[in-house]
């Protein structure tokens, strides 16, 4: 019994290894590549960030089962509109892309398309355990397991499914990140496009995106 225990713990990666793996996992951009740099943040940026964080237009895209809690979040009991969160119909107008749960590869393609059509600064909020690590679909042949290999993610909300309170908490976190100038990875996505494209093409079999990156 104790033998197996030791072996298992050794096979498990150390914390350092995990952190290293995380770094490899999703490209992190340097501070200069960010939309705003905290050190050089000026008054204008402060005001702009204040406006940004209080005016979040959610793209109307229910990618998975988490979409069931979005109406609850937006309607009268939880009323996300008091925080400036409201729906937007097309990616051109939207700021926040909510990945509400698992993504099948067919949807992933559309999500990438939609993400690229959004305008900077754009934020991605990933919803539910399945976006983090596949969740209960860890052995499903049709869902991706880790979202940030395909598009950059700002905030993860864990749970299956997260309650509206958790969603609001996630948005609060996003607002905090926006105010500090740490949210919005559109620039980062463009810089590391090759890395993302390689990952995307690995799972999306019928790749028919235009060669040139347009946003």
């Amino acid at each position, binding site marked *: 019994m104790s033998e197996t225990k030791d072996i298992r713990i050794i096979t498990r990666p150390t914390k350092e290894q*995990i952190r290293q793996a995380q770094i490899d996992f999703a490209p992190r951009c340097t501070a200069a590549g960010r939309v705003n740099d905290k050190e050089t943040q000026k008054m204008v940026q402060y005001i702009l960030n204040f406006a940004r964080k209080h005016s979040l237009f959610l793209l109307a895209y229910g990618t998975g089962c988490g979409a069931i809690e979005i109406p609850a979040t937006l309607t009268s009991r939880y009323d996300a509109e008091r925080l400036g969160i409201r729906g937007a119909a097309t990616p051109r107008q939207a700021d926040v892309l909510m990945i509400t749960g698992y993504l099948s*590869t067919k949807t992933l393609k559309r999500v990438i398309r939609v993400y690229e059509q959004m305008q900077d600064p754009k934020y991605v909020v990933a919803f539910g355990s399945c976006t983090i690590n596949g969740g209960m679909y860890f*052995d499903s*042949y049709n869902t*991706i397991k880790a979202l940030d290999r395909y598009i950059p993610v700002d905030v993860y909300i864990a749970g299956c499914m997260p309650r509206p309170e958790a969603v609001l908490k996630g948005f609060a976190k996003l607002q905090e990140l926006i105010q500090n100038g740490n949210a919005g990875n559109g620039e980062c996505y463009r810089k590391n496009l090759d890395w993302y494209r390689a990952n995307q093409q*690995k799972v999306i079999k019928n790749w028919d995106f235009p060669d040139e990156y347009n946003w």
Partner: protein
Amino acid sequence: MTTQDIIRALNETFELKAEVLHGNQIRVSMHKKQVAPVLLYLKNQWGFIHLDHVSCVDWIEENVFELVYIVYRPQDQLTVLVKTKIHREHPEMENMEGFWPHMRTYQREIREMFGIEFPGFEAPREFILEGWEEIPPMRRDFDTRGYVKRTYTTRPGREDAWSVREYITRRTGEKLPDFARKYSRD
């Protein structure tokens, strides 16, 4: 109308051995050539107007696919499960999309998920999957975990799919409680 009437009628017309499954449900197996006439007969003669379901089961051990057509008669809640077995090598089934409008949907799904061909069925091939290159995924010989391992990247720390409770007890040195041990996989 009772189940016995239907069983008798099927027996007399097609010389089939039908049996009662549960309550109002009748199960009848036949050769695949007989399925279309039986379904039409049930629909037109006996008023089994509602196609409830079409399903397929992969009996890989016997090397057959079993197709199940479930039809329903709303007047007295009779259900007939029409079953047939087709060979797993080059599986083919008669195209019956004209019988019920949603037969088309079922046939598309079965064609995509099991690779059963319906000659003369002209619906687009891609239905649920997109750009699928492997063997049809619902076949039992398709290894979904292997495919996942080949295709997707999981975040580190979740490769082994451990039992969480077990892991916690081992790390902290606690004793596994009895009720948990009962459900343990070891």
